[in-house]
């Protein structure tokens, strides 16, 4: 396994090939916020909060660190005015749905996000897909999935599978970054209908 040398926030970091920037940063204790990331799951790149600036060959651009793979001589900045502005906006957009999520509130404090900036539309779900992907990738059950698209997209349990599989599992509940009850609520709804 060949080693790759890169720089994160001015710190020289040695990483393995095939590592993402996020993994490389975590390996040396540099914190990058995430919402849809989970080490057991395939990179998803949906919440965009782990966005960072990379400079390679003199060109700087914004990439999400949970997907972008490390490269030799890559220069990464995990904080900047631009990055903070994006993270703040993402948090404010999500807080309109899940204003009481402790995880979102903690990050909001760090980035100065106003939880009341946008009109509340309390659906709780922030579409991180952790429950959906955990069920598919780790449990291989596909008992919960996304339905519809765009702003109408939501998670939904498939009653035929959920009624058999979910009672003894419920491993997705604690993964939910907004409220564990969210998954439970949707599950009960699905089974009751």
């Amino acid at each position, binding site marked *: 396994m060949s080693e790759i040398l890169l720089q994160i926030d001015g710190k020289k970091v040695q990483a393995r090939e095939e590592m993402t920037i996020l993994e490389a940063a975590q390996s040396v204790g540099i914190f990058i916020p995430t919402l849809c990331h989970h080490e057991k799951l395939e990179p998803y790149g*949906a919440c965009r*909060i782990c966005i960072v600036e990379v400079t390679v060959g003199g060109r700087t651009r914004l990439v*999400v660190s949970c997907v972008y793979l490390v490269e030799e001589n890559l220069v990464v900045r995990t904080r900047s005015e631009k990055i903070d502005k994006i993270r703040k906006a*993402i948090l404010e957009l*999500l807080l309109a749905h899940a204003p009481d999520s402790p995880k979102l509130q903690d990050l909001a404090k760090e980035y100065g996000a106003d939880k009341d900036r946008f009109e509340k539309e309390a659906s709780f779900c922030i579409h991180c897909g952790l429950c959906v992907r955990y069920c598919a990738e780790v449990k291989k059950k596909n008992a919960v999935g*996304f339905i519809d*698209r*765009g*702003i109408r997209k939501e998670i939904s349990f498939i009653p035929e599978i959920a009624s058999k599989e979910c009672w003894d599992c419920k491993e997705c509940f604690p993964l939910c970054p907004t409220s564990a009850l969210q998954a439970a609520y949707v599950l009960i709804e699905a089974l009751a209908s």
Partner: protein
Amino acid sequence: MSRINSPAELEQFRKGILSKRDPNKPCIALCSGSACLASGSDQVAASLEEEIEKQGLSDQVEIRRTGCHGFCERGPITIIHPEETSYFQVEPEDVPEIISQTVKGKQVIERLLYVDPSTNEKIIHESEIPFYKNQERLVLGSNVSIDPKSIDDYVAIGGYSALAKVLSGMTSEQVLEEVKKSNLRGRGGGGFPTGIKWQGAAALPSHVEGSRNASGETKYVIVNADEGDPGAYMNRSTLEGNPHSVLEGLIIGAFAIGAQEGYIYVRQEYPLAVENVDIAIKQAEEYGFLGGNILGSGFDFNVQVHQGAGAFVSGESTALMTALEGKVGEPRPKYIRSNVKGLWGRPSVLNNVETWANVPLIINKGADWFTQFGTERSKGTKIFSLVGKVTNTGLVEVPMGTTLRDIIYKIGGGIPGGKRFKAVQTGGPSGGCIPEELLDLQVDFDELTRAGSMMGSGGMIVMDEDTCMVDVARYFIDFLTDESCGKCVPCREGLRQMHKILTNITVGKGREGDIELLEELSEVAIDASLCALGRTAPNPVLSTIRYFRDEYEAHIKEKRCPALSCKELISYYIDPTKCQACMICLRKCPVEAIDGAKSKIHIIDQEKCTKCGTCFEVCPSRFGAVIKISGEPVPSPIPEDARTIVRKSKKNE
């Protein structure tokens, strides 16, 4: 039909077809593209067949149902060969006359000709009509000469000769060089250089069944025919009208990069395109242009058609590939190009229908010929679907660099109804709106981007003075909130909030700071979205703010819609000095909101009025008594005793 086994045999076969065709035999070409079918082309075709038989001409006259001619405003279009007499808006009732007068008697039927509105001159030949005269129809031009369901028609006009040229001695490197030299850029909107995209895939070792290269990778070529922009149908008409040109380009591309499998991803909502391309593939297989050992060259290539399930986002290249793999059509988050890792993780070259259709032209006529069209950095022609408030709607193909003014006025015939041009929206729902002061912009990839819009796949929607630019932005964002895949936050949530803000502005609930908030959300969507849909979605908002900021401000600050279009911000009012108490509006009002009587000036009850606009439309133009007002209070009704009109005739009694 037996297989054609070599380029020489193809030439022989072509000569055979041409020798059997008498150029002087009357042939009626009838446009049968989707637009003309909608305006009755099938009925005209049935009458033609019936009438030809009735007049005993079955073996003397041919009917050719062609693809789209482009001038859809005036369809169905009929061209009678060999004189090439062109008739427009033909109806079944016109057919007996066409057969007896024009086909038999060689007489021109004046009333079916196109009349140039500026000179009132009647024009006999399609090519002399201003709509066509100012175009350069390199890609679409063949549509009028072939029946898309007949491979022989395509072969007769030189079809598959580019493939023959490639397979009779060109190396894949030579093909690649020619395409690179032509500077062809992706017609789907990105404008990425096609040759460079191909080269990326060609550089990787190919997996070729049974050869020394068996260790290499399987590669794919893909046609993106998932055209989903509202009002755009250039890919549709190309696939419907000349499917073999796309196939030929695809086969050449496959040869250049070393692919043996190809896909055509076409919208399920395009049944005729699907039908014609299916037929074309079957015919090409029979003739040996597809399948094993193509034209005896040893090159194998097969194509499959995949019908999309109706998601706009699947036109995004990585979402399209995900959908081809049988998954939900969501863009991939990867930072690796598809020509290295695409469909099923293999090197894949995906190009738009129009890009592929350009390839045979470049191979046949050479890159030097191709680069004489266009601008410094955008070569060749581009097909636009010219729609909206423009006199000649239809498909327009012009060299890159043609000005918007030429497209809209010279070809499009300007704005109908004496209205004033306001803006043109280019590039589909995530394109931008370009104002009047930029009408002399030379349309190419870079100029459009500089103006805050984009080429997209070639949508062009013309808007007149009655269009509210805030409402236009709201409309496109509404479309995109539906069509976003909903995966990433900046796009899904950003668009949700932008839609709310824009809706509020158009209903009079706009607030100070809304414009700045829209700009901020736009910036985040551009910087942080996962795919091109989200990154370009703010264009309609940002471009309208950039060029029509005063309209936003009028809505927000004065609660006034300058275009008098936003329902919540306008009122209908009957000017008592102009009202002739004719009862027309009073009778037509669907909610009985108009009070009055014969000789009693009409008044609109603002409480009851639903602002449907019927009174405004039906008030005779010589009166013009119904007016729209915005941003000011409706004048109070005149006193009862002043409402009686004393008619002149009665006064004289």
